[in-house]
């Protein structure tokens, strides 16, 4: 099992959700994060003048998938999250040793 952690633009959440459903993953966990990268921040306005904020709102989408689903899932996210502009985000693949479904206590493959 792998955990796919995708840092995406806020406005791409709906397409990413749909793309993951298409490859068979409905379950996921999402959190609000702030990121910086090449995008370099935005400038906001004070009463007068401006100031730069280097952390931009992003969403982190976490999906735990079977090993064999990693490639399709990565493809689904990459396609659906992409705008082609700087700041589209990154995906990281992290090994998962085990999973448990709390409701049933099932673990391993049955838990995801």
């Amino acid at each position, binding site marked *: 099992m792998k955990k796919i952690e995708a840092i995406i633009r806020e406005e791409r959440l*709906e397409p990413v959700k749909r793309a993951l459903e298409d490859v068979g993953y409905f379950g996921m966990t999402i959190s*609000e994060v702030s990121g910086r990268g090449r995008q370099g921040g*935005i*400038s*906001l306005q004070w009463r007068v003048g401006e100031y730069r904020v280097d*952390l931009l*709102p992003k969403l982190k989408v976490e999906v735990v998938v079977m090993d064999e689903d990693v490639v399709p899932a990565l493809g689904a996210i990459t396609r659906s999250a992409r705008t082609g502009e700087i700041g589209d985000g990154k995906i990281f693949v992290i090994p998962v040793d085990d999973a448990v479904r709390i409701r049933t206590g099932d673990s391993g493959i049955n838990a995801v």
Partner: protein
Amino acid sequence: MPIIAADTAWVLVSSAMVMLMTPGVALFYGGMVRRKNFLSTMMMSFAALGLVGLLWVLYGYSLSFGPDKASIIGGLDFLGLAQVGQAPSPVYASTIPHLAFMVFQAMFAIITVALITGAVVERIKFSALLVFSAMWLTFVYCPVAHWVWGDGGWLAGLGALDFAGGTVVHIAAGVSALSLAIILGPRRGFREGTPMEPGNIPMVAIGAGILWFGWFGFNAGSALTSGGLASSAFVATNISAAAAAFTWMVISWVHRRPTLLGVATGAVAGLVAITPAAGFVSPIMGIPIGAGAAFICYYCILFRMELGIDESLDVWAVHGIGGTWGAFATGIFATVAVNSAGADGLLYGNPEQLLPQTAGIAAVWVFAFGATWVLGKVVDRIIGLRVSPAEETVGLDISQHGERAYGGQLR
């Protein structure tokens, strides 16, 4: 006639209370949109305070209440407040300074423009909104105010009753909102059913509370004197608001659950509906008027949704339809026992009063819808009404105003 200090105090306080309603609208609307458009929505109301506040004293008051030209519009005699001083006007509100009457009316013009913005939140270009607002004030609000309230206005001449602005403020705003929303088109994702959850319902509730408070100035202040009539209008206002809030709560409970958003909306619908009637009907008639408003507006929102029109915050259903019902109800429930300057309605043996009421409603519906359509199209042609899709997804707070509601936090 000399100035009466008590009447002046009452109208000044009422003016301040109506002024506060515009920040109230800012909260009421601002809390209902998504977080990324919170400030831009509030900004639309605050901009009205600045823009309309200026245009009104420059020429708006004159067009609306200046000496009559052909029953259609006021003359330019009061440009820049010329002749508007501490003495009473010869024709309006004879016991208070002309300036007091003028500023009370200013607050009405401001909030009317602010009300419309609920239809176009989350996608209109701010520059376009400002230009539209200025044109709308000039070409829609001022004439309609003159027709109904101006000395010599043709709807006043017909005997149409509108105590505090059911037609001038609410029908005009609501119908124009619908017209403009159709031109502008729906928000991205609206057609696809993306949920657009209100971002901050407590703010909606504070906004509604402030509106309810200010509406006493709006309606009871419209007596323009302090005394029995103001008291009667005050009580009618509170009863209608209570009846509508309660009814809306019950209706949504029957459908599923009673919501704070519903109670807030219901209260506003009840306040809208009693507006034209407040000083003409027996206060207890606030019950049928308010309860009726809740029913009618509730189902008009459903209807609007079924039509698939993104008139986003239901200015049409609440103000347009609420105002229409109120203007009509005035023709039913009015009685000269409450206000000798009014008329008897259907219930008091005078079904004919429904005629001028209907004429007033029809005239304002047709004119407001059509004129707004033209103005909207013109603005769209010249500067474009909508932000770009990218600006819309990012949100108007950042894209139009370079700000965000909750900064300082990490996100």
